[in-house]
């Protein structure tokens, strides 16, 4: 897939709560094809501590308005700088990058997102809907505060929630959700994005039932286009780049 580099106009910068915000970015050309699971490399306005671009998943694609949406959690200087972008300012993106989740032609699938790992799942859910695949989404977080925009999924899939403190949905980790009882067997494929320990726990559980599990890794990146080999993940076929051969991997291929 061809990669592009463009200045996107900030059309909206909506805080979700004190830690999360959504950027609405208008593309200066007609948006090229974008697959679920792909990401962008964002150039943060240069300061000595934000020299490199920041990789951010594509949260949603609005073809009517020709916009890309990014869901971002403030963790350090780069993401904080992005949170203070004003409407009308421009943001330079290299996009769309990486492979994508595989899209089946039928069946029932489960999408699991932990914390900001939920970011790639919305566009995936939307995409699956157009392919008539029945999707369910399980969203996990520490508390209500980390369960972001779960209403947005409702047009596309059934929504399940867990929080560590039980403040929303079922109490516990995603792997403790009741879906992982008998019901898990009825899924044909599981997609996960979140902290590594969560992805490992989910894939181990799911592999037991021989259900294919796709995980989206968030390795540290420098170039984002396969030029530096900084981001590789060890697989059974040697090191693979997370930015080009990933970020989505079949859990069985990874040496966790």
């Amino acid at each position, binding site marked *: 897939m061809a990669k592009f580099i463009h200045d996107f106009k900030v059309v909206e910068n909506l805080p979700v709560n004190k830690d999360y915000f959504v950027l609405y970015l208008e593309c200066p050309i007609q948006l090229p094809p974008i697959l679920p699971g792909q990401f962008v490399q964002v150039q943060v306005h240069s300061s000595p501590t934000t020299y490199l671009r920041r990789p951010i998943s594509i949260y949603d694609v609005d073809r009517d308005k020709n916009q890309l949406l990014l869901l971002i959690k403030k963790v350090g200087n780069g993401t904080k700088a992005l949170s203070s972008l004003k409407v009308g300012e421009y943001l330079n993106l290299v996009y769309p990058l990486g492979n994508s989740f595989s899209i089946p032609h039928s069946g029932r699938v489960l999408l699991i997102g932990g914390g900001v790992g939920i970011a790639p799942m919305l566009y995936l859910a939307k995409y699956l809907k157009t392919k008539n695949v029945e999707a369910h989404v399980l969203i996990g977080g520490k508390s209500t505060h980390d369960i972001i925009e779960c209403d947005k999924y409702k047009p596309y899939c059934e929504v399940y929630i867990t929080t560590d403190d039980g403040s929303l949905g079922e109490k516990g980790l995603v792997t403790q959700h009741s879906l992982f009882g008998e019901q898990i067997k009825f899924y044909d494929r599981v997609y996960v994005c979140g902290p590594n320990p969560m992805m490992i726990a989910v894939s181990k559980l799911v592999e037991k039932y021989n259900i294919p599990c796709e995980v989206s890794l968030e390795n540290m990146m420098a170039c984002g286009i396969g*030029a530096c080999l900084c981001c590789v993940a060890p697989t059974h076929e040697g090191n693979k780049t997370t930015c080009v051969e990933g970020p989505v991997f079949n859990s069985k291929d990874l040496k966790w």
Partner: protein
Amino acid sequence: MAALEVKIHDLILKNPVMTASGTYGYGLEFDDFYDVNRLGGILTKACTSKNRDGNAMPRMAETPSGMLNSVGLQNKGVDYFVEHIYPQIKKYNTHIIVNVSDSTIDGYKEVAEKLMPLEKITGIELNISCPNVKEGGMAFGTSCDTAAAVTKAVRGVYNKTIIVKLSPNVTDIVSIAKAVEAEGADALSVINTLMGMAINAETRRPVLAMVTGGLSGPAVKPVALRMVWQVSKAVDIPVIGLGGISNATDAIEFLLAGATAIQIGTANFVDPMVCIKVLEGINEYCDRHGVKDINELIGGLRY
């Protein structure tokens, strides 16, 4: 429009802008962004005699105005390069120079010999920052004797252009430059990364799995500029300057310090278009300063 052609030994570059090894893949990664043939040359990522998986993760850390990397020369080895990569890159109409590395002198020779017949590979760049296994892991490039020995051995089997890329992690870079010049190096690249380290105070752990790594980016530019200036005064072969170049002004500074051409590395990660912007900026600078030929600028520092 000034004349931009420069000469590195036998190689006539259409302009002095090249890419730095390990930061530009094989060029193919940039095909979507611009016509790679516009550049004076591309330096591929390191090529070694055998497949190398590289170092453990994490391999990179961002540091003020730069980054540390410990990629560890990951590549599939010279045979794979010849069979699978060369056929994809021989389409380019610019100099393709392969960065050669290994842990033994025989390894360097083997790679050079296998690259020799490839028509579109017009030269090699010896990366002598690699640890020498026989000498107990000290980098070849940190002593005059080992640096000279690698150069001499490769010179014996390779008769196209040999560029030797110097390590800045030495007390006297000029003596190493002279030692490799004496053994037949045709040009020098100055500098490779500076050894550095990053610590996460919260976890009290090193950030990189390898603990130390190579520093690159704008943070190293003043050191690189000083070394290019010192080396280019001391040798008679052309020097290719690199280290932290991010815009045309940086590039001009390296030319003034004595570099005949320049390479751009880490800046490609920040702006994939940077090489083209530097090229256009050099043109603009020449017009603004009434420079008719870029060669007027080389070593043109006024005191």
